[in-house]
């Protein structure tokens, strides 16, 4: 890599202040610092620094999402075929190569649009503020595609990404300053701006469904139980009762992820591999993840205790495996910038997040995908939780004065 380093040394004078391409410095710096850890040395304070930096941290999160991405691509391919054939009973594992290619054809453009739009805006703000690209969007750019339905139009992905990056992040000051999770902001934006493209039973499978076939998800079907009049879809797929539901989406299927849903969210196993990477490296907070799952499970049990219809009676562990719950718990709720920042706060934050997610999912049939709303709500609440934890710390130390 010596030639690259030499080239870098040669080009550097042009991009620093007073150089020919001074204006392009943020772009140059981004490229240079990506290829090489810069030659910055400590100037004050400690003379040595830990090896870890934000680039490595963020790259680890991206790596943790790869299992979800790969499975999501395959799953998207599978359900595209199902929609085309109009038959839900196709063998999931048959014809794998073709399914993967179909899925790739659908998913790759979404990723390209998400990164393309997001990074362009980030660079634009980089030029305005005179700093190189900050790494936060590396993760957001991958999260956005993974929480989209497969059939989402590409322009919507672009608009949502732009909205999330500008309104969700850059106006607050960029990476590390945002209040709301970027990817969820994008999803929420689409959900409320273009509800027909983000919910219902037409969007979860890529391509056109054949007539008379509904591409509904487990959550969509479950939500029909909550309505007074079951829709045609509900009757068609489920007949009556929970048993029919379990036939259609068994717990095992939900864990494996061979059910329709947003691109990256379906497979609990792929998500748990990601969770292991995040927890193993210490990037993701165990407190948040665990308490989020516990919160969801507890709410599921409470709903079971009341019972009344099939959705309320759905065993609590089903809730953890379907929809975006696990994906949200592992990748969204643990975003350190928007989550609680105190160690005690993280437990409260996670628990309430999971609790609310299932509450919204079940009790409000208009929003079966309650997870993202719950996490966004908790993002807003996180500073308040932290405030009380910090006050607790302050009070504890004030008490010390009286006792001594």
């Amino acid at each position: 890599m010596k030639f690259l380093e030499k080239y870098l040394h040669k080009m550097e004078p042009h991009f620093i202040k007073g150089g020919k391409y001074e204006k392009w410095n943020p772009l140059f710096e981004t490229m240079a610092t990506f290829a090489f850890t810069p030659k910055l040395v400590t100037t004050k304070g400690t003379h040595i620094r830990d090896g870890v930096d934000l680039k490595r941290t963020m790259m680890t999160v991206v790596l943790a999402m790869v299992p979800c991405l790969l499975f999501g691509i395959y799953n998207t391919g599978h359900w595209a075929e199902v929609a085309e054939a109009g038959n839900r009973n196709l063998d999931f594992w048959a014809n794998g190569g073709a399914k993967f290619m179909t899925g790739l054809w659908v998913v790759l453009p979404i990723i390209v649009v998400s990164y393309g739009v997001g990074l362009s805006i980030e660079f634009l703000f980089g030029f305005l503020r005179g700093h190189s690209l900050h790494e936060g969007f590396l993760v957001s750019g991958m999260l956005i595609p993974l929480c989209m339905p497969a059939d989402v139009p590409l322009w919507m992905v672009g608009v949502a990404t732009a909205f999330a990056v500008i309104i969700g992040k850059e106006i607050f000051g960029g990476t590390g300053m945002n209040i709301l999770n970027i990817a969820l902001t994008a999803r929420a934006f689409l959900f409320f701006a273009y509800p027909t493209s983000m919910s219902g039973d037409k969007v979860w499978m890529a391509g056109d469904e054949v007539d008379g076939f509904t591409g509904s998800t487990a959550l969509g079907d479950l939500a029909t139980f909550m309505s007074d009049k079951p829709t045609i879809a509900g009757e068609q797929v489920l007949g009556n009762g929970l048993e029919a539901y379990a036939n259609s989406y068994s717990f095992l299927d939900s864990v494996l992820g061979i059910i329709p849903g947003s691109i990256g969210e379906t497979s609990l196993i792929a998500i748990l591999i990601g969770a292991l990477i995040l927890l193993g490296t210490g990037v993701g907070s165990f407190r948040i993840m665990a308490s989020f799952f516990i919160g969801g499970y507890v709410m599921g049990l409470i709903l079971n205790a009341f019972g009344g219809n099939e959705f309320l009676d759905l065993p609590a562990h089903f809730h953890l495996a379907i929809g975006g719950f696990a994906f949200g718990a592992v990748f969204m709720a643990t975003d350190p910038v928007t989550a609680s920042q105190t160690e005690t706060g993280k437990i409260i934050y996670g628990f309430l997040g999971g609790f609310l997610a299932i509450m919204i999912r079940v009790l409000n049939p208009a929003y079966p995908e309650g997870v993202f709303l719950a996490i966004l709500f908790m993002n807003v609440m996180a500073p308040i939780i932290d405030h009380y934890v910090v006050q607790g710390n302050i009070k504890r130390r004030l008490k010390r004065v009286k006792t001594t």
Partner: protein
Amino acid sequence: MSKTVKLKKGLNIRLIGAANKVKTEVAMPKMVSIKPSDFHGMTPKMLVKEGQEVKAGTIIFQDKYNEPIKFSSPVSGEIEKIVRGEKRRILEVLISTSQNQEFEISEIRSVESMSNDEVKSTMLASGLWPFVKQRPLDIVANPINEPKSIFVSAFDSSPLAPDFNYVLQGKNKEFNAGMEVLKKLTSGKVHLTINGKATAESTFTDVKGVEINKIVGKHPAGNVGTQIHHIDPVNKGEFVWTVNAQDVSIIGRYFLNGKYNAKRTIALTGSEIKNPHYIDTIIGANVADILEGQITSDNVRVISGNVLTGDKISKDGYLGFYHNQITVIPEGNEYKFFLTTGWLGLGFDKFSNSRLFPTFILPKSKKFRLDTNTNGEERAFVVTGELERVFPFDILPMQLAKAAITDDIDGMENLGIYEVAPEDFALCEYVCTTKIDIQDKIRQGLDLIASECM
């Protein structure tokens, strides 16, 4: 009542180049320097002129805004130069040493027979006072205040730090006398904290009339700030004084012999030192002779003090007033390709507290050769929970740092700024993913507190 404190949090940075327990005496340095910048927030008022002859112990300057605090020359010789910077600010006072060392001689009196005020005024008049530092603010103690206790740490846990058991071995008499002096300075207790894991020398264990506490844990267990927090924490309006263990023995020496003898044993450490060992030298000594033939390469950084809190000095620079060690490590001013030695490499050569690097699977005996590269660029705070892992205080480090950055005085007061010194945040700064200069921010916060609240 002595206490035993056990710490769970902390981090021992395992560096190559700990000093072997061999002591060599180098010749008296030709030049010594006293740097006013070693005494944070102090503005010197010179009492000597360039070319004037001084003896060891002659007062050379005093604090312009707190005149009883005086600073003395560690050697006899001639004031070579008063180096000034912008706006004629005094950067350092250079003193060339004479062949025969002469001392200012004062009357020898036993400490027991002296009153508290006499001890204090003797220390002030002789220039010994700057050895006494205070919390809050981590500055030279203001003699007007009444400290509720005085803390001395009998060990240094920072990377490659000298072993005080070795350095002060056999200096029982001096150290004891120094502790007697400290006892006179407070109506409260004098705490001497020893390492609970190692056996302490009789220098420390034989001291009578003080609280001997034990502390067990990783760095910053040896930091006096950690010990104060767990044994007798500082609240608003209270003062705790601290003295470095070697400086206690210098103080003791003065009261025993009537001479200010600023000799101290320092450790010559670091991966770029050929033969790390101990050296007897003097406060403010020029390091050029000490480093002669010891440095392995040209591209190195010489640090007066340890790698976490020390000051960068040049190869012919001077030892700091409070420092007990010189560390030499490689400079990291070169590009590192991201896949090999850079940010995405395997990183077996990097020491990290996070599990993003394989440090945690390597054996504990493996030591590292770390350079001064920041290993990344500065960003806004993103990662949470990492500072807490190395900060054994019941204080929220990130929240306090943020309050300091935003000049939030109320926030800082509530979150515990009175208990901390920048050095307590050194490990936080080391592990910070986003490379924020936390020690500097805390210092700025303390300066604001000093000007607004003290």
